């Protein structure tokens, strides 16, 4: 389970629905863009800002012309919809992603390692 290396991104993702999209890594989905074009392909990654990387893409432009792309990067702002495949269990996917973030955050146990949210010093 891949989790962002950035504390900021982990926190943003944990507090929004983008975390579900991050759980779609490896799935084939269709991303519909703001400009009415659509990209159908395998999700490589989604970051906290909803920037999406897809592979093996069929890109259909606004006018309906389709082309094949090995890789495509879509800026988060340009996403309108993401189709969720029928076999995705939404709740389970989100919970798995949260568990992955917590594993990274609490690595090393209570008294070891660098703390993501340091204990308050009195």
């Amino acid at each position, binding site marked *: 389970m891949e989790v962002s290396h950035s504390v900021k991104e982990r926190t943003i993702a944990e507090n*929004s*629905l*983008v975390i579900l999209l991050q759980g779609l890594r490896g799935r084939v989905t269709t991303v519909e863009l703001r400009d009415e074009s659509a990209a159908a392909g395998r999700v490589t990654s989604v970051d906290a800002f909803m920037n999406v990387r897809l592979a093996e893409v069929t890109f259909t432009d606004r006018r309906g012309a389709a082309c094949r792309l090995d890789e495509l990067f879509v800026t988060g702002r340009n996403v309108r919809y993401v*189709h969720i495949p029928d076999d995705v269990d*939404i709740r389970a996917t989100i919970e798995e992603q949260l568990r992955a973030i917590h594993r990274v955050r609490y690595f090393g146990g209570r008294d070891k390692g660098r703390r993501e949210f340091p204990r308050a010093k009195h």
Partner: protein
Amino acid sequence: SLTFQQQTTNTVEEPLDLIRLSLDERIYVKMRNDRELRGRLHAYDQHLNMILGDVEETVTTIEIDEETYEEIYKSTKRNIPMLFVRGDGVVLVAPPLRVG
């Protein structure tokens, strides 16, 4: 935090709480670019990113008749089983409109 993970409070304190009341219900969503969605609200967040199930999207276009110059409203509908909607496209959220 994600809505369905929070301890649910019964009080309505802020506008987003009104949307919470519609969880698992069918809702109407008006979007930018003359789009409307009707579907079951499964989840939402503070950005109004939403997950809708059993969605019907209506796109409305206006065509101008070349002879009479009257405006003809055309709408195109399609159905999508499960859709993630990015919040910045959402204009309003309401219970389903009872329009004929």
